[in-house]
C-alpha cells in the first residue's frame, strides 16, 4: 500500500492545492494592487486604534533617542567631569544618578510603547476576527461549497495573527526605523557631505534589491499562505473522514497525499527563505562595502585635513547606529509582505458580495397560513456548464395551508435541491417561491427562517446540550422566568416525544448532556431524531424535511410516523421521501423527474396512474417473487428510466 501510493494515478484531495492555487477559486483576480493600497484597506478597522499606535511610535522614538543619548552623556561625563577635574565624590554620585535617571526613562518609554500598542493590536485582531466570522455566517451556502473550510480557518486564525503582530510591532518599528535612517543620514551629512553622499549613492543597490525582492516575495508569500490553508483543509478532511480512511485502511495513503502537500509547502517556504537570504545578503553587504569605501575616503580626507579624526569617529559611530535599522528593513519588509498577503486574503472574503441577503424593502407576512407555492422555479449551480439543463427545471407546485406534500423521485432528481431553495440556502435562478403569496426573497431572512424549519438528512448537531439543540429554533423560549422555563420544558418534551427521542432523558446528564462534536457521540439514528425534534420544536408554518427518517429502524420509524402525522395536521410540510412508509404521511405526492414535477396527486391515485411513480416507490414486484431470487421483470423499467433521468 505504502509503496503503491506515490505513483497512484488518482490521489484524492491532491488536486486542491494545484489547480485551485494557480488560477482558481481562492485567489484574488482583481487588478493588481500595490502593497500600500492593499494595507490601507485596513484603515477603517484601524481608525479607533490610531491615536494609541501613534503614541506608541512617539514613545518608541523617545526610547531610541534616550538610548542614543546615554552613551553620549556617558562620554561627556567621563570626558568633562572625571578626566579634567579628577572628580569629586559628589559629582560621581551625581553623574551616576543622571545615568540612572536616563536609564529609568528609557525603561519607562519602552513599557509605554508596549502599553500603547498592546490594546489596539489585540483589539483590532479581535474586531477583524469577529467581522470575518460574521461575514462568513452571512455568505450563502454556495460560497461555502466552493471554499474549503481549512482556507477559511487559516484566514481567521493565522492571517489575523500576522496582521496583529504587524500592527503592534512591524508597523511601529518600520516607521521608527525609517525615521531613524532619515535623521541618521541627515546627521551623516552634517559630519561630512562627501562621505554621506557616498553612503547614499552606494545604498542604491539596496533599493533595487528591495524592488526585486518584493516582486518575488509577495507571490511566494501568497502561495505559502494558500498552501497552509490547503494543508489545514487536508487535516480537517482526514479527521472528518476518519471512519472511511480507517474502514479502508487508507491512513497511509492519506498520509502520502498529506506528505506531498506538506512537501510542497516546505518547498515554498524554502523559496521564501532563499528570497529573504538574497535580500539579507544585500542589506548586509552593501553597508559594509559603503563603510569600507568611506573608511578609505575618510582616512584620505583626514590625511588631507578635510576632516578631523574626531569627526571621522563620530561619522562612523553614527553610521554604526544606523546599521540595525537598515538590517531590520529585511525582516520588516518580509513581515509587511506577509501581512499584505494576509490582508488580501481577508478582504477576498470580506469583499465577496453576499447574494442572499435581506431585501431592501422587506415585506411581512401578517397572517401566516402556510401556503407554499413554487412558480416556474429554476435552479442551476453557478458553475454548471451551459450544456447541462437546469437542475430544477421549471417546477410548478402548490402546497396548501396545512397540507403535507411528499417529494418523490430518483436519486439526483432535484428533491433535496428543491427543499433547500425554500429557506433560501440557495436562491432560485428563475421563477419564484412564495409563502402566503410573498416571494421568499422579499422577506427578511430572520422572518423567512422563522416561518420555515428544516431537518436535513445528514443531521448536524451543535456542541451544546440536547435541550439547546432541540430548542435552537425557539429563541423565544430562552429565559429564566418560571413561565418561559416551563414552556420550554413542555416544548422540549413534546418534540422529543414526536421524534421518539426520549432516549435523551437517559443520557448521563439527561437533556443537559452535551452532544455534538464536543460532547457525547450519538448514533446516526439518534442524531437524526434529535434533528427532527429540532425542526418540530421550531413550530414553523412551513416544515421542510429532507428524508428525515432514513436512519431509523422500522419500529421507530413507524412510531415517529404516527406522531408526525398528528403534528403535521396543522402544519404545511414538504417531505422528501424514499420509502412508502414516509409517503404515507403525505396528503399528496409530487413526483419529480428530470428537475420537473411530472405528476401530483394522492399516493393511491399516482400509484394507479403513473408508471414511473410505481417504479420509484414500489417494491411489491420484488416481494411477490419471494426472497433470495431476482425478479426477472425488475430490470426492464430500470434501464429505461435511468436513462430518462440522465438525459
Amino acid at each position, binding site marked *: 500500500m505504502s509503496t503503491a501510493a506515490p505513483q497512484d494515478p488518482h490521489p484524492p484531495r*491532491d488536486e486542491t492545492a494545484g489547480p485551485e492555487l494557480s488560477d482558481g477559486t481562492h485567489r484574488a483576480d482583481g487588478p493588481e494592487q500595490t502593497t500600500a493600497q492593499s494595507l490601507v484597506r485596513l484603515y477603517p478597522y484601524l481608525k479607533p486604534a490610531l491615536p494609541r499606535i501613534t503614541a506608541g511610535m512617539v514613545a518608541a522614538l523617545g526610547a531610541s533617542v534616550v538610548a542614543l543619548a546615554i552613551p553620549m552623556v556617558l562620554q561627556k561625563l567621563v570626558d568633562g567631569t572625571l578626566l579634567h577635574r579628577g572628580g569629586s565624590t559628589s559629582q560621581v554620585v551625581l553623574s551616576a544618578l543622571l545615568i540612572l535617571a536616563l536609564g529609568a526613562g528609557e525603561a519607562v518609554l519602552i513599557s509605554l510603547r508596549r502599553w500603547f500598542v498592546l490594546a489596539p493590536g489585540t483589539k483590532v485582531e479581535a474586531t477583524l476576527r469577529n467581522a470575518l466570522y460574521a461575514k462568513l455566517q452571512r455568505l450563502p451556502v454556495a460560497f461555502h461549497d466552493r471554499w474549503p473550510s481549512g482556507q477559511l480557518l487559516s484566514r481567521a486564525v493565522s492571517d489575523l495573527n500576522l496582521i496583529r503582530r504587524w500592527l503592534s510591532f512591524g508597523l511601529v518599528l518600520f516607521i521608527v526605523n525609517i525615521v531613524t535612517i532619515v535623521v541618521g543620514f541627515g546627521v551623516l551629512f552634517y559630519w561630512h557631505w562627501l562621505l554621506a553622499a557616498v553612503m547614499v549613492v552606494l545604498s542604491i543597490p539596496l533599493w533595487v534589491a528591495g524592488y526585486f525582492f518584493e516582486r518575488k516575495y509577495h507571490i511566494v508569500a501568497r502561495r505559502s499562505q494558500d498552501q497552509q490553508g490547503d494543508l489545514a483543509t487536508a487535516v480537517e478532511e482526514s479527521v472528518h473522514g476518519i471512519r472511511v480512511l480507517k474502514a479502508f485502511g487508507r491512513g497511509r495513503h492519506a498520509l502520502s497525499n498529506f506528505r506531498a502537500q506538506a512537501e510542497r509547502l516546505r518547498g515554498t517556504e524554502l523559496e521564501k527563505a532563499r528570497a529573504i537570504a538574497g535580500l539579507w545578503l544585500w542589506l548586509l*553587504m552593501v553597508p559594509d562595502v559603503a563603510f569600507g569605501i568611506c573608511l578609505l575616503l575618510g582616512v584620505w580626507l583626514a590625511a588631507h585635513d578635510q576632516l578631523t579624526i574626531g569627526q571621522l569617529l563620530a561619522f562612523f559611530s553614527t553610521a554604526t547606529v544606523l546599521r540595525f535599522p537598515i538590517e531590520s528593513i529585511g525582516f520588516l519588509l518580509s513581515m509587511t509582505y506577509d501581512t499584505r498577503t494576509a490582508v488580501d486574503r481577508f478582504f477576498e472574503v470580506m469583499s465577496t458580495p453576499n447574494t442572499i441577503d435581506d431585501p431592501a424593502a422587506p415585506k411581512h407576512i401578517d397572517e401566516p397560513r402556510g401556503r407554499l407555492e413554487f412558480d416556474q422555479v429554476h435552479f442551476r449551480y453557478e458553475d454548471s456548464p451551459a450544456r447541462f439543463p437546469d437542475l430544477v427545471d421549471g417546477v410548478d407546485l402548490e402546497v396548501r395551508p396545512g397540507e403535507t406534500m411528499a417529494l418523490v423521485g430518483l436519486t439526483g432528481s432535484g428533491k*433535496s435541491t428543491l427543499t433547500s431553495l425554500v429557506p433560501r440556502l440557495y436562491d432560485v435562478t428563475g421563477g419564484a417561491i412564495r409563502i402566503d403569496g410573498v416571494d421568499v426573497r422579499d422577506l427578511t431572512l430572520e422572518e423567512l427562517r422563522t416561518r420555515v424549519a428544516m431537518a436535513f438528512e445528514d443531521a448536524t448537531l451543535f456542541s451544546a446540550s440536547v435541550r439547546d439543540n432541540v430548542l435552537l429554533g425557539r429563541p423565544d423560549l430562552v429565559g429564566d422566568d418560571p413561565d418561559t422555563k416551563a414552556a420550554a420544558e413542555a416544548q422540549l418534551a413534546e418534540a422529543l416525544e414526536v421524534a421518539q427521542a426520549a432516549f435523551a432523558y437517559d443520557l448521563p446528564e439527561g437533556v443537559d448532556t452535551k452532544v455534538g462534536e464536543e460532547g457525547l457521540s450519538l448514533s446516526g439514528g439518534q442524531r437524526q431524531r434529535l434533528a427532527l425534534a429540532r425542526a418540530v420544536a421550531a413550530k414553523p408554518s412551513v416544515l421542510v424535511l429532507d428524508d428525515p427518517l*432514513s436512519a431509523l429502524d422500522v419500529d421507530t420509524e413507524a412510531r415517529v410516523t404516527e406522531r408526525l402525522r398528528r403534528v403535521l395536521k396543522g402544519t404545511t410540510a414538504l417531505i422528501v421521501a424514499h420509502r412508502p412508509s414516509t409517503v404515507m404521511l403525505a396528503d399528496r405526492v409530487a413526483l419529480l423527474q428530470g428537475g420537473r414535477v411530472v405528476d401530483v396527486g394522492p399516493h393511491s391515485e399516482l400509484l394507479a396512474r403513473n408508471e414511473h411513480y410505481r417504479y420509484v416507490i414500489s417494491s411489491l414486484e420484488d416481494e411477490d417473487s419471494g426472497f433470495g431470487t431476482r425478479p426477472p421483470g425488475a430490470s426492464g423499467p430500470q434501464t429505461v428510466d435511468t436513462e430518462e*433521468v*440522465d438525459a
Partner: protein
Amino acid sequence: MSTATVTGVAGEDRSDLSKGESRVIRQRSLRLLGSLVAPMKVKVTWTLVLVVVSTILQVSGPALIGIGIDRGLPALLKQDWMPISWTVAAYLAAGVLGALTIAWYTIASAQISQAILFDLRTRVFLHTQRLSLEFHESYTSGRIISRQTSDLDSIRELLDSGINQLVQGMLYSGFIAIAIFAVDWVSGVVLLCSLVPLYFLVRWFQKRSQVLFRISRVASAKLIVHFVETMTGIRAVKAFRKEKRNEREFGELVEDYRDVNAKTIQLFGLFDPGLVMIGNITVAVALLIGGLRVASGSLEIGALLSVLLYARRFFDPMEEMAMFYNSYQSAAAALEKISGVLEEQPGVPEPAHPIKLDGARGHVVFDDVNFHYKPGRDVLPKFDLDIPAGQTVALVGSTGAGKSTLAKLISRFYDPSSGAVTLDGVDLRDLTQEDLRRAIVMVTQEAYLFSGSVADNIALGKPDATIEEIRRAAQAVGAHEFIEALPDGYDTDVNKRGGRVSAGQRQLISFARAFLANPAVLILDEATSSLDIPSERLVQQALQTLLADRTAVIIAHRLSTVAIADRVLVMEHGRIVEDGTPAELIGGTGRFAQLHAAWRDSLV
C-alpha cells in the same frame, strides 16, 4: 477525564498544573523536541558554526575601522598607502564574507526548521490516523486541526525567530564580559552581580508566561473548534438562525483569546523594560564605583571609559534574547499539547508480532466476546457467533441492540473488552492493518467524500486501480449513469463535503469504493439508507453477485435487504434472540416474523 493525570491529552485544558505535572509535561515536550532535532545533528552543528563565523566576522568590523584610523591614517600621512589598503581590503572581505555566511545561514536554518515542521506535521497526521475511533469520538476534529495549525504556527515562530540572534547575542555578551574582566575585574564583579536580579526576572517571567501561554493554547483551540463546527454545519446554522447566537459565543471565545494574548504581551511588556532597567542600573553602579575609584586614584580614567561602554553593550542583545525566550515559551506550550496527542496510545494497537494472512477466506468468529464502552455498561455482555466463510448475514434489531457495535468489532474499530474476534482462526489483534483492511471493509451510512474527483473517491478503495476498474465498480453498483451525467464525468470535483452530489449518490460512490476494494469480508452498516428504491434494488443485485463468494454482514433497517441474506440474526440488548434463514424466521412466530409483517404492510 480525571484530574489526577496529565498523560496524553488528559488535562489538556488545565492551566493550574502542579509543579510535578508541569515538569512531566515539559520533559515530554523536550523529549519530542530532542527527537525532532536528533536526525539533523550534523546540519545543526554546521549551522551553528556558520553563526559563530559570521558573528566573528561582524564583530571584527568595528575593530578594523579602529585599526584603519589608528594605523592607516598616520601611515597615509607618510604617503604609505599599504596599511589603509590592507585594512580596507580586510574590512571589505569580512563584510562580504559575513553577509554571505548570514545568507547561507538563513537558508540552512530554514531548511532545518522546515524539516522539523514537516516531520512534526506528518508525525501528528500519522498518529491521529492511527488513534482509535474511541479517541476521535471524544477529541474533536477542531482540536486536532488546532494542533496542526495554530500550535504548529507557534513552533514555527520560534524556529523562524532567529536562533542566530540568540547565538550571536550570547557570543557577543560573552566576548564583552571577557573584555570587561580583562580591563577591570572589579567592574566585572559588578556585571556579575547584575546577573542575580536578571535571574529572578527571568524566573518570574518564565513562571507567569508558562501559565499564560498554556491558557492561550487552550483558548485558541476552543476558537478553532467553534469556527470549524460553524463552517461545517453552515446549513443548519442558517436554517435555524443560529448566526446571532454564534456571533455572541464566538465573540466570547475571541475575547478570551484576545485577553490572554494581551496578558502575555503585557507580561513581556514588563519583562523587556525590566531587562533594560537592570542594564542601566548596572551601568550607573559601574559608573558610581568606577568614578569613586578614579577619584581615589585607584583606576585609570581610560579603563573606566571602556568599562562603561562595554557594560552598556553587554545588555544590547538582551532584547532580542528576551524575544527569543518569549517565543520559546509560546512554542513550548504548543509542544506540550502536541506531545500530549502523540503520547496517546492507539486503542487498537498494531501487533508486535503480526501473523501473516494471505488470501483470507472470510470465516469470522466471535469467541466469548464481552464489550463495553464504559465499565459496568455492557453493550455485548457475552457474545458467541460463528459466521462461515461466504455466508451473508443480516443483522436486525432496534436501535441500541448492539448491531453497529458488532460491525465495529469485526472491522476492528474497537477491540473486545474480553474474548476475541477471529478471522480464519487468527485473532484480529494479530493482523497487520494492511492485511486486516484488505480482508475486511466496512461501508457506513455516512458516506464521506474527500475533495477531489469522483474517480479519486472511488479509487480510495484501491489506490492503484485503473480508470477502467473504477468504471466497472461504478457500473456494478449502478452509479455509472449519474457519474457520467456530471459536468466532467468521473473527473468532476465533488467539492467540499460532497456539496454537489446528493446523499444517495454519495452512498453509491462509497459502495463503488467498497466494490473496488474487493474484500473477503464486507460489512454494510446502514449503507443504503439514503437510496431510492430503484437504486437500492440495483445495489442489491450487485450485492448478490458481489457477495456470492464472500462473507458479508449487513445491517439495514429496511428488511428488503434481508432478501439477499443466507441467515438472519435478530439482536436485542446485545444478545442474539433469533437465528435462522429468512424463510424459517418469517415462517415462525418470533420477533422477526412480526417485524417482517409490519414492514410488508408499509409497502405498496
